[in-house]
């Protein structure tokens, strides 16, 4: 399909809004942005509450906190304080892979711990039961750390998970800390990310000052090791000569978090879920951060080069170039093989808080065209870049999400870069502590849609007839019933890994497989057409 045949995105936007009652139409209209040729002023509404009754992709604060950020850590016992459901649904459902260092090293990720709150606790309070539960978990497992997660009713009945955590910390002599991540807080998972960042920063980061051996010390933030992505990246860093101290949080452990303030640089993958941590580590310890992207081969190469230039050592720059040169031929071979089968096909991506941006890279690399993309729970800075941060208003729904006041740690703060070095990097186009957002990388006459609804999704499928739609598990089978493949970008449909160079090749092949599988051509029975003609004939 050539460029000229693309429908007018503005008209499509009108179609998406038609059905809504006036008030809803006005609201939703602000969440749908037609990308203009210059893109500069393209603005979008995000991180505001979903209209009740709209079928949304979004989940809750608890899911963002326990499910996304803390979930992938194997050796913190995570007790969910609340009725059983919230704990149950976040039990092993996110595919965060983990590799304990030995056969008897702790790994609690296969377990689900909950206080399974009953009516009695709703009426009389649940703190006693929570304390007892912490004690029982300790007696059984003797972990180094226990995290307590509050679900919806807990805040309402006034249980204080922080007070209980402090008491039990003292009593047991281990690190026990709480998360007030009740599901009604904020407007989506996003509030939970923030709360998780805050508590990890307050209670864990910086506990271990033991110097770390190795050169080019980095943390990888916002990488959750879905389908083994982090494993591939760990290998990549090792081959290039980096020292990866901690990943927040994929294949991660408590001890790694504790010493994560001893690095030279933080790398940020999913800006939405983890930028708070990066900012706080910058403020307290002086660690700069770089927004990078390891989804897409070119993006991976670019990211590696930027990191190497940050450190500036020719030894590292050479190692990175060598690694890229070693990996690229296979990537190019796969691209050349698959492009003819995929070139020009349309893709739509509506997912998460960073993937809708990152995965556009992979589609472009195989010649596909992204005509619409949007996030489930991101903020305006993820769309338009951090330049909008100063003007962002915090509304009533987000006002109560604590913003930690972080100050310089006078003994441990250490500026990693001189002002000149920073300036020099900027001259090379490398801006620290910055994210451009998704919109600048999109093409004109495409759509950016925030918190897409089920109805809008259906309309887009009807109007664009894309070759592929990317979303999550709730959307998957509705899309596919239309005869259009849906690739899950949360769970990867139990495939992957897709990060880095080898991951990119996996992804190209996966997209070819899902689009070109024979079954899409076998949906209609062989007699359907003939019978239709006969029926039409009889009717005329």
């Amino acid at each position, binding site marked *: 399909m050539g460029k000229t045949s693309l429908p007018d995105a503005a008209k499509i936007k009108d179609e998406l809004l038609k059905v809504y*009652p006036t008030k809803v139409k006005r609201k939703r209209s602000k969440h749908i942005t037609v990308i203009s040729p210059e893109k500069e002023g393209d603005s979008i509404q995000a991180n505001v509450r979903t209209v009740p009754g709209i079928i949304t992709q979004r989940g809750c604060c608890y899911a963002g906190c326990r499910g996304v950020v803390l979930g992938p850590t194997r050796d913190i016992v995570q007790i969910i304080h609340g009725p059983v459901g919230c704990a149950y649904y976040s039990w092993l459902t996110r595919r965060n892979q983990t590799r304990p260092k030995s056969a008897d090293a702790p790994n609690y990720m296969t377990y689900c711990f909950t206080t399974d709150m009953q009516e009695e606790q709703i009426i009389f309070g649940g703190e006693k039961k929570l304390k007892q539960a912490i004690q029982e978990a300790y007696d059984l497992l003797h972990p180094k750390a226990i995290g307590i997660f509050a679900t919806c009713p807990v805040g309402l009945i006034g249980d204080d998970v922080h007070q209980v955590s402090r008491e039990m910390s003292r009593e047991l002599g281990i690190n026990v800390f709480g998360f007030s991540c009740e599901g009604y807080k904020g407007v989506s998972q996003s509030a939970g990310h923030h709360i998780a960042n805050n508590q990890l920063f307050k209670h864990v980061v910086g506990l271990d000052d033991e110097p770390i051996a190795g050169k080019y010390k980095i943390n990888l933030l916002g990488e959750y090791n879905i389908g083994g992505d982090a494993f591939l990246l760990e290998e990549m860093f090792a081959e290039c000569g980096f020292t990866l101290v901690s990943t927040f949080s994929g294949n991660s452990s408590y001890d790694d978090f504790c010493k994560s303030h001893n690095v030279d640089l933080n790398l940020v993958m999913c800006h939405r879920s983890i930028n708070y941590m990066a900012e706080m580590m910058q403020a307290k310890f002086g660690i700069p951060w770089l927004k990078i992207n390891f989804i897409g081969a070119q993006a991976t190469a670019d990211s590696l080069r930027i990191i190497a230039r940050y450190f500036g050592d020719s030894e590292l720059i050479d190692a990175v170039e060598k690694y890229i040169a070693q990996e690229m031929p296979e990537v190019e071979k796969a691209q050349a093989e698959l492009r003819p089968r995929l070139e020009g096909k349309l893709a739509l991506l509506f997912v998460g808080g960073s993937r809708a941006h990152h995965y556009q890279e992979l589609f472009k690399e195989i010649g596909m065209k992204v005509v619409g993309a949007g996030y489930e729970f991101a903020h305006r800075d993820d769309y338009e870049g951090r330049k909008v941060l100063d003007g962002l208003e915090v509304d009533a729904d987000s006002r109560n999400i604590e913003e930690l006041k972080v100050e310089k740690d006078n003994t441990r703060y250490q500026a990693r870069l001189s002002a000149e070095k920073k300036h020099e990097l900027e001259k090379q186009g490398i801006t620290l502590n910055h994210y451009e957002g998704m919109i600048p990388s999109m093409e004109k006459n495409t759509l950016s849609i925030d918190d897409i609804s089920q109805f809008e999704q259906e309309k887009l499928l009807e109007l664009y007839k894309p070759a592929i739609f990317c979303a999550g598990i709730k959307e998957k089978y509705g899309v596919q019933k239309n005869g259009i493949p849906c690739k899950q970008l949360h769970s990867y449909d139990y495939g992957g890994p897709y990060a880095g160079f080898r991951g990119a090749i996996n992804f190209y092949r996966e997209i070819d497989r899902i689009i070109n599988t024979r079954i899409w051509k076998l949906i209609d029975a062989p007699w359907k057409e003939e019978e239709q003609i006969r029926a039409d004939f009889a009717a005329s």
Partner: protein
Amino acid sequence: MLLRHTPKEINPRKALTINPAKTCQPIGAIYASLGIHKCLPHSHGAQGCCAYHRSTLTRHYKEPIMAATSSFTEGASVFGGQANLLQALDNIFTIYNPDIVAIHTTCLSETIGDDVPQIISKAHEDGKIPEGKVVISASTPSYVGSHITGFSNMVKSMALQLSGGEGRKNDQINIIPGWVEPADMRELKRLCQEMGLNTIMFPDTSGVVDSPQTGKFQMYPQGGVGLHEMRRIGDSEATIALGKFTSQAAAEALDAKYKVPCQILDLPIGLKATDRFINALRPYSRLKVPESINYERGRLVDMITDMQQYLAGKRVALFGDPDQLISLSEFLVDLDMRPVYVLTGTRGKKFLRRMQEILGQAVPEAKVQHAGDIFLLHQWIKNEPVDLLLGNSYGKYIARDEDIPFVRYGFPITDRVGHTYFPSVGYQGGMQLLERILGVLLDRKDRDTPEESFELVM
């Protein structure tokens, strides 16, 4: 090891649940609501619950599962969710155009104390519910009971809020199928048809959560019990309710309201429970039990007689939901197997009583637990192993660690297909189940047997 921290030694726990064998009420309410034609389930609470329930049901059914939410924010949690629900109803009918909205509550709206029936009346008064459209509701706090309770509560609401009758008995009976799969519901309808009966089954998820690939998404698939049918259930001759935990409440409510006598049976899983089901249908049929059904029964019995040697004496652990466990255990006993550990997360003394009837004499060493968790079941297994494990997909972690043949049964099954397409109720369902059990047991024998005694014929 996947569950490396599970010790053999069992210390009682009072407050900590580890690896639950139940989940929360609303998901059951949604599943029941999906069994009504053109119904959109609605979750009155914060949107996370609804997202989780939809995801879990989707993983089990591999089908689109639609449900809306009141999307509570902190404000709604303080001031109550009335405004949210009114707005939601308005939007739902305008945008998604269902015939029925079935509202269930969550822990949040229950803790706040929202009065949903009152809000629905207000919605009617405000003209937010279009002519001819229906809204029903069930109270489903998750700090009481389990997903089973939620299912039961919504079915009861259907029986009370959608039912109608003219006071004249019709030649028809109601079937309340309990929490079974769409294939089971289809099979139950077929058996009733073979018996020459007119039936109304509610809920009926067949054709809803197992809809065909047609190239066109249907927001409301063809299946589900129709509103016009529900309006006649008060005139039925009788109600046959399957499963005490999931169907009794609805059947009794209907009896109280319209004097439709009810019989509560075990789920017809396995030989004897199916016999009782067919027997219960007989008084309402003018026909003798048709030969076709006798044949089906005969084939199941034949299969058991042929393969009995591989089943006898095998120790089985099973976990899941009470209604299923009751019938499964009875079936296993009829196969001469030994259900030594039977555990549900749902609370209920009547479960223990019924299990005592089934296992008391036959398997005196059996351990039966209500309100238990899978962690405990695993510990039992560590203390004295079993030959077979039956349960939902979470069982695979135990099965792998302990190297036990494993048959997936129950909810949720997130890693295999078939459970929604092939019935396990009725005689044919019994054969399916038996085939799967035999499959894993014989595969195991083939894997472990020394080369010289490897058998071609078994």
